[in-house]
């Protein structure tokens, strides 16, 4: 199936990956950026790079849709896992229940 689509210019994908890496490092060097915006930008750039590798280097673009769905599953589950962990983590670092309990037991 992949044999009909051999026209991909792999060097162009490589240039894109390098440019996105430079952008990622650049984002960390902007001091004005708040942590939230920095995180959003960095995750978006990383997902973009992973997408390029999977689609063109791993030829996922030319595979069946079912295989694509199988490959996407762990990423969906991992995003779900992050949301499952959020109540335990607590959104404010200093108000996490584990820490509060620890302080009380010291007295």
């Amino acid at each position: 199936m992949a044999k009909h689509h051999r026209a991909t210019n792999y060097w162009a994908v490589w240039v894109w990956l390098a440019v996105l890496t430079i952008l990622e490092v650049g984002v960390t060097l902007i001091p004005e950026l708040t942590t939230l915006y920095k995180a959003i930008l960095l995750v978006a750039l990383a997902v973009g790079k992973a997408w390029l590798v999977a689609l063109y280097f791993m030829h996922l673009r030319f595979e069946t849709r079912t295989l694509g769905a199988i490959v996407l599953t762990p990423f969906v589950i991992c995003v779900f896992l992050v949301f499952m962990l959020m109540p335990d983590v607590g959104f404010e670092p200093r108000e996490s229940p584990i820490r509060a309990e620890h302080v009380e037991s010291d007295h």
Partner: protein
Amino acid sequence: MSEAVAMQNESYETPLTPESWGKLGMWVFLVGDAMSFGTLLAAYGAMRYSSGDWPIPADILGVTLSGFMTFLLICSSVTMVKGLEAAQKNDLDDFLRYIGLTIFGGAVFLGLQVYEWSHFIHGGLGFVGNPWGSPLFGTTFYVITGFHGMHVTGGVIYLACIWFKGRNGAYCGENASHVEIAGLYWHFVDLVWIMVFTFIYLL
């Protein structure tokens, strides 16, 4: 051809990856492996954001060396895919050259990781101790980069086997799917490093 024989033949191929069962097997393995890395990274996030004294990673780890290591893996990924292209075109010289470069890139990456780890260990960052705050910072760093480093080690050995077995042209032309399957593994290791670089070094 009788119906029974036709059915028997069909059972040898999968509609998902008509080229080979091995390719589907590698994809299924990688999906499971992605869950392992995803869980490690999610655990990293949970520990980091429930900790009050997590250091800023870039201050301790730096981004220059890890940025170069990222670039190195990207380069070795493109040489891998060019090597596969050469194998499919029956170009043995280019196949050996590109796979050789891929192995070289992976080996240099491992060397840099050894250098980086010894640098951090001498700087005081331990597996269970960290002079800049939460001890889990060291634990998660070594577990995640170590788990990835083991994957790179496995990949270098895997590709070295492909190079040696394929040096007479065994994987050129019709048999290039063996190279493609090895490539899937190698690109996945690159993909995971992209995530590790972002979540461990940059964020």
